[in-house]
């Protein structure tokens, strides 16, 4: 009787498993996406990575907060000089939780910029921009520049005095560049004066052109991170890929007191493959 119950249960279980697995297998057979996700989740990273390595995903989170709150703001914001200021007041003071959405977008921008700088500093201090990750460093610097441009175009949108005069100065600064400057300033203004055209232009760049660019660059950035892996902290005794024997031969006069310890630590943890 016990055997029959177990058989019955396992038959039900088999049915359940088949029901769950069928759509997953269907998707995997036709796209390979499940395999990709498994690779992403269960790929190995160096054992000595830690909190320092969370700055990149923290920056991504800040950007996703901007994308989400930005989509909601775009539903209520009116990008023309007659209505922009009132729509900002309406969002902040009247809409349910509108203050939270706008506040998160306003302050999230600064957090995003700060985190980009921190992430950049981490990569610099770890020497993680060296071969074979040069290209990803360049994409990162581009993201920083484009991210600051996103901040500049977004700053005008509330159409208050702060916004307006910061943009007057910003556009005039662009205008001082040699050769291209005046054209760039005219393009940004959309004419001789800062007005309706300028606001529409900045709005379009701020919510279509630049975010699209940022998404694409982040995609490339992450692809390269997954393909090339993240580097161990340089001070780690078991840093992946470090080869103290070849890098610092015993005859090298610079190998001081710390070297033998570092080498023996390395041997202890992975000596079999040296």
């Amino acid at each position: 009787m016990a055997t029959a119950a177990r058989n019955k249960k396992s038959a039900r279980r088999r049915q359940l498993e088949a029901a769950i697995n069928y759509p997953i297998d269907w998707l995997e057979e036709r796209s390979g996406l499940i395999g990709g996700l498994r690779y992403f989740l269960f790929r190995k990273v160096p054992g000595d990575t830690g909190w320092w390595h969370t700055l990149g995903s923290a920056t991504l989170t800040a950007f996703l907060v901007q994308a989400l709150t930005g989509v909601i703001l775009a539903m209520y914001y009116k990008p023309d000089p007659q209505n922009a200021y009132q729509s900002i007041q309406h969002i902040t003071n009247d809409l349910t939780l509108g203050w939270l959405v706008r506040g998160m977008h306003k302050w999230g921008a600064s957090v995003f910029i700060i985190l980009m700088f921190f992430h950049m500093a981490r990569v610099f201090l770890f020497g993680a921009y060296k071969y074979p990750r040069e290209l990803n460093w360049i994409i990162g610097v581009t993201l920083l520049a484009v991210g600051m441009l996103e901040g500049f175009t977004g700053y005008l949108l509330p159409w208050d005095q702060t916004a307006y005069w910061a943009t007057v100065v910003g556009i005039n600064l662009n205008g001082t560049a040699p050769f291209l400057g005046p054209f760039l300033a005219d393009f940004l203004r959309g004419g001789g004066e800062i007005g309706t055209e300028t606001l529409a232009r900045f709005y379009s760049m701020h919510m279509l052109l630049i975010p699209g660019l940022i998404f694409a660059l982040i995609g490339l950035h992450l692809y390269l991170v997954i393909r090339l892996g993240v580097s161990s902290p340089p001070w780690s005794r078991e840093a992946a890929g470090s080869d103290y024997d070849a890098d610092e031969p015993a005859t090298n006069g610079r190998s001081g007191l710390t070297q033998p310890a570092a080498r023996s630590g390395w041997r202890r943890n992975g000596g079999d493959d040296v």
Partner: protein
Amino acid sequence: MASTEEWRRQFTKYKEDVKKRGKPFYPYAMFEDTIMSLVVVSVIIGLASVWYFTSGEDPKTCGSGDSCLLGPRYSDPADPATTNFVPRPDWYFYFLFYLLRIFKWPDSVILGTVGIPTVLLIIAFLLPFIDRRMERRLTRRPVAIVGAILVVLSMGVLTYKGATAKEALASEVVQAVPTWAQRQGFAGNAEAIAGAKIFASSGCTACHTYLGTGSSNQGAPDLSAEGKKGRNKQFFMQYIRDPSKFGNNVMPKFGFNDQQLSQLAAFLLASKGPK
């Protein structure tokens, strides 16, 4: 400097080491990433809450009634005509903003606006090709350490200076007009006094200095003795109406009417330098 073969050998070894001794991304690294992301979202919500709950619907209540710990919800509506407002960019451009106070218009301002930022950006892009040594330990990268400290220090100082740069408030500057008239000797000239008041209340001193009042921002010149340069009233009116026609792309157009332009021109013409 390492050879390509050395780099490749090292990276092959990296991949082997990670395969042999690494940990799976999920759940180990992902756990830390998730915690950090939650911290980031909490900080953003915290900033938004402090900003909202310490400010009121009217930006004028800041300082009287509302503490506005993180600034007002918005400033007054944009008004291109009345310009008694001190222009200032968002905080991450403060370093650039202050860099412009160091360089004086018109000879070297281009160094501050375009030159230095461009050079910095190019160095940042080319960093992996400038530093081609294999060494990653900081204690053995003295140039990188010194460079990083210098960059952080100068950006920090410039940002701080940009944040605390004192621009005189328009209401305070207007108080100085009678003194100016006396020192410059145009106390009897009603048109020049009217012009001086426009000059004082329109934010001109955010960039220009006049008899020691104001700033020298973005390379704008001291105007205390502008009337001694032998220019006529017509020149001043045209210049202020559209500075870009005179090759000045830094000073904005302020949208003054003809009467205001005439008064401003009279004021500048009467400014022959203190007696």
